[in-house]
């Protein structure tokens, strides 16, 4: 590969990585560390090639160790990250459910038995709850941090 093109890739990917992480809430630091650790497990693709064209005992045994280590990085990295994030998700999901429930109750209290609420009202309500839930999502983020 042309060295200058590589330079562009390095620069652009670096910018992407930096900008994507900016503003991440601190509760996600550890999962993100673990997740990006998993991503560099793509070294496996390279380790496979290295072993695949290795010749002689020395090269082959080094390559073998490399593929083993890289696979461990991939698999272990994935499992750890997923386990960690699973826990966040459960609590986030639970939270989400509770909020929806609350909103439903609220809506019921506001229009008791209102099957014939006029269109405008229903529309306005719809808008509101939409906004609300997006607010809540936001809240999650900031609360988490």
């Amino acid at each position, binding site marked *: *590969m042309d060295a200058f093109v590589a330079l562009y890739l*390095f620069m652009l*990917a*670096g910018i992407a*990585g*930096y900008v*994507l*992480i900016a503003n*991440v809430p*601190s*509760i*996600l*630091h*550890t999962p*993100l*560390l*673990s*997740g*990006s*650790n998993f*991503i*560099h497990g*793509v*070294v*496996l*693709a390279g380790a*496979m*090639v*290295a*072993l*695949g*064209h290795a*010749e002689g005992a020395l090269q082959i045994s080094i*390559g073998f160790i*490399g*593929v*083993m280590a*890289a*696979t*461990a*990085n991939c*698999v*272990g990295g994935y*499992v*750890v990250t*997923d*386990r*960690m994030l699973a*826990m*966040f*998700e*459960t*609590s*986030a999901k*639970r*939270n989400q459910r*509770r909020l929806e429930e609350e909103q439903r109750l609220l809506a019921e209290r506001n229009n008791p038995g209102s099957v014939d609420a006029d269109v405008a009202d229903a529309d306005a309500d719809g808008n509101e709850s939409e906004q609300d839930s997006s607010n809540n*999502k936001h809240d999650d*983020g900031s*609360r988490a941090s």
Partner: protein
Amino acid sequence: MINSSSFFIDLAYFFSAALFIYGLRRMSSPISARTGIWIAATGMLLAVAASFSHPNITGNHWLILIAMLIGGALSFVHAKRVDISDMPQMIALYNGLGGGAAATIAAVELLRAAEHGASERILGVVGALIGCIAFSGSLLAFAKLSGFIKYGNWFSNRQTAYVAMMALVLMLGFILAFSNTAHPVLLLMFFALSLLFGFIMTSPIAAADMPVLISLYNAAAGLAVAFEGYVLGNPAMMVAGTLVCAAGALLTRLMARAVNRRLSEILYSGFGIAHSTSEDSVHYGHVNEVDAFDAAVTMAFAERVVIVPGYGMAVAQAQHKVQELTQLLEERGVDVQFAIHPVAGRMPGHMNVLLAEAGVAYEKIHDLSEINNEMSKIDVALVIGANDIVNLSARTDEKSPLHGMPILNVDEAGSVIVLKRGDGQGYAGLDNPLLRHEKTRVGLGDAKRSVQDMISAIKSLD
């Protein structure tokens, strides 16, 4: 450039790079984090599957498969089994292996030096150095955090020796990069010295600064992968590695800032050195003890209770008991909330993860600023194995290394109960005036035990 891969492999690599980026983006928001890791995993599968038919793989197919099976199986079992509160060391381990894998690629390719151009050999050598440091440094971090190796700064005060070593490494690297024949012996020396550097970097660092250091090694491993990607002409590795490097570098800074430390401080000095001067201001006063029954009664008849978990709760693995206590109290009509300080525990989000694991509802968990506004309306604050994050000297003592860090103002609550084992201090090694505060009573003993006793006591009330 020895690469001559086909169209479909190029395409697969491209998509996997795109998926890595997209996955990382999703991982940086709490809502979408889990789909993020799945997306990244899809990218990984694509890249690995494509590599199987890579034209440069001219043999050793079975060896590749066997190595993958061994490495995959071992790490799968280990990662599934290990306790979730041991995460920092697990991350360190897998990160180190990734850096090591990058180094092995460099080793193989430098042994085939003739097939590569100068620019590839240069980046290969640099990648090898960085990968080795990430490998040995991470593994030592893993060993220390797992308790296999005790704290010890084996390599202190030999600056001249280091400089000489560094010069030697650079010289070796120079030779390896600029000659187009293989030098196995020089290569071995180069790798040995590089690995040694990783050990030297990690060795003086206290266990509690490890998360930041691990993040740094993560960035380093990413860079090593990117450079070896260049050597092999694999743009997916280049993009993913650089991505990880940049994200990891930023993450390292963010994490260091969260625990109120500078990266240079962490790398160049143990924590003990930094604040030893203020140690002489320590003066012990009177501590009110409380037994489990009294503590339980106080809480059972309170209206609003806040629980402040800290590192001690993680050590004692008391989170499930704490959740049980919470439920008992709530059945009695007590309003129980949790207050999480951003640096409670030993890694960001440590407490959140543990409480989530125990099933504490998300909406009961509040952060510093939220709860501090409410604190005066709270009847009882139950501090479980936390010290620094409620250390009153952070507010008053300018010489304290904690000075300036916002703390949870538990002293504003009606009364405070602190659970701890003895007169141990926290991460910062400081005396805590809170323990001698008139409102405070201290319940001695392991946190899990103490909470269990409180649970029994409350049950006996009915």
